[in-house]
């Protein structure tokens, strides 16, 4: 019981095979298990069935239910948050147990010789689940081998978008970050002093005469607010009207350049 983990704890590293072996070799008289290490209620159930050396196709439901509830109680006693899914499974087990205690309806038993076993659905789920659990072990093994091979530079692209190397998840994540950042920026915006039209004209003029030309789109993009943008726009009109400056556009929808004549 040295390590107590929750599903969220992704930093935790473990040896898939070793840990499983350790749990398996634990005494039956004592719950010598690392609590919380079960990946879910089905995982726990499989463990208990193995520990009881029971047949998965003929689960001793009363005994397993008792063990399962014992484990849940132990978790609670240790203040481990019992996930709702574990409780759902507890309810399922109790339901199956009570169904099995019910005497068979004598009127049915005659024509319906093979009554559906109340455990059947659970067995199917366990068998299906265990396949994926084994596959998880295989994946673990593969990744261990792969992590020992190094290449030049990491590979970060995805099959769907080999050309842009980003997924829709990235888009959303990035967008959320911008929105969060934007909230902060707006707060800063209020304190920023707005530039006057005279200063705007002076700055723009200085830039045109220093560099020969200014890309209009880039200039507008430097503006921090709608009002600044309007000021910048008027400044451009003013300069084109009054100074020896030309507006150039090489192609339709192309960048507009302010150039010194």
């Amino acid at each position, binding site marked *: 019981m040295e390590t107590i*983990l929750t*599903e*969220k*704890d*992704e*930093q*935790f*590293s*473990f040896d*898939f095979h070793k*840990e499983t072996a350790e749990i398996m070799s634990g005494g039956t008289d004592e719950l010598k298990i690392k609590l919380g*290490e079960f*990946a*879910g*209620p*089905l*995982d726990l159930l499989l463990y208990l069935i193995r520990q009881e050396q029971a047949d*998965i196709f003929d689960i001793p439901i009363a005994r397993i239910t008792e063990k399962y509830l014992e484990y849940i109680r132990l978790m609670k006693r240790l203040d481990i948050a019992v*996930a*709702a*899914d*574990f409780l759902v*499974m507890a309810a399922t087990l109790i339901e199956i147990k009570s169904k099995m205690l019910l005497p068979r309806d004598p009127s049915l038993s005659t024509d319906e010789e093979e009554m559906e076993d109340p455990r059947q659905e659970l067995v199917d*789920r366990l*068998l*299906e*689940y*265990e*396949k*994926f*659990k*084994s*596959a*998880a*072990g*295989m*994946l*673990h093994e*593969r*990744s261990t*081998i*792969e*992590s*020992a*091979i*190094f*290449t*030049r*530079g990491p*590979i*970060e*692209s*995805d*099959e*769907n978008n*080999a050309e842009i190397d980003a*997924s*829709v*998840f990235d888009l959303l994540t990035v967008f959320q970050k911008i929105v969060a950042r934007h909230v902060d920026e707006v707060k800063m915006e209020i304190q920023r002093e707005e530039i006057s039209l005279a200063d705007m004209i002076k700055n723009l003029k200085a830039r045109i005469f220093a560099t020969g030309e200014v890309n209009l789109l880039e200039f507008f993009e430097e503006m921090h607010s709608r009002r600044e943008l309007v000021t910048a726009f008027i400044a451009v009109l003013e300069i084109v009207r009054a100074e020896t400056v030309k507006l150039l556009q090489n192609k339709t929808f192309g960048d507009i350049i302010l150039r010194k004549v």
Partner: protein
Amino acid sequence: MEEAVEQKVLRTPTELVAIVEALIFVADEPVSTRVLGEVLEEERESIQAAIEQLQSEYEGRDSGLQIREIAGGWQLGTRTEYHEEVRKFLKTRPNAKLSLASLETLSVIAYKQPVTVPEILEIRGVQSASAIKTLLDRRLIVAKGRKEAVGRPMQYGTSKDFLVQFGLKDLTELPSIEDFEDLVQ
């Protein structure tokens, strides 16, 4: 057409092997036989032969490197037996391993893709939200559009990074899920 034939570069097999080696080396991700053939204007068979030659050369001289087929292409990588020295040199620690929950979720996604969150819950019997988040963050899975069902839930599948990190040529290289049935008693 004739002109094209005339322009075609004549290379000896040895030269082709060398060039293929150079291209696999400079690429920052696995290069497919098809791409190599297109760039070098060579037949698929010649490229394939060159790669095989290259592989046996690397084997034969006990190189510290190997040519591997991965994620649909060829890549040069270090040999596993020297990982300790490489790690020491790069001062890297092994990646944080995936938790049991994440591995299980990944295996369900790998075998059932495209698959939705409720479908994963059904198989695992437990909510997998944080595991899915981890797998997305580590780029092992990607969203694969919505399912035409009530609520149009998002579907997930494995990424190319998944193939790379698990050393798979492609998804068909995954052992069949039914193969794991034998292990279940």
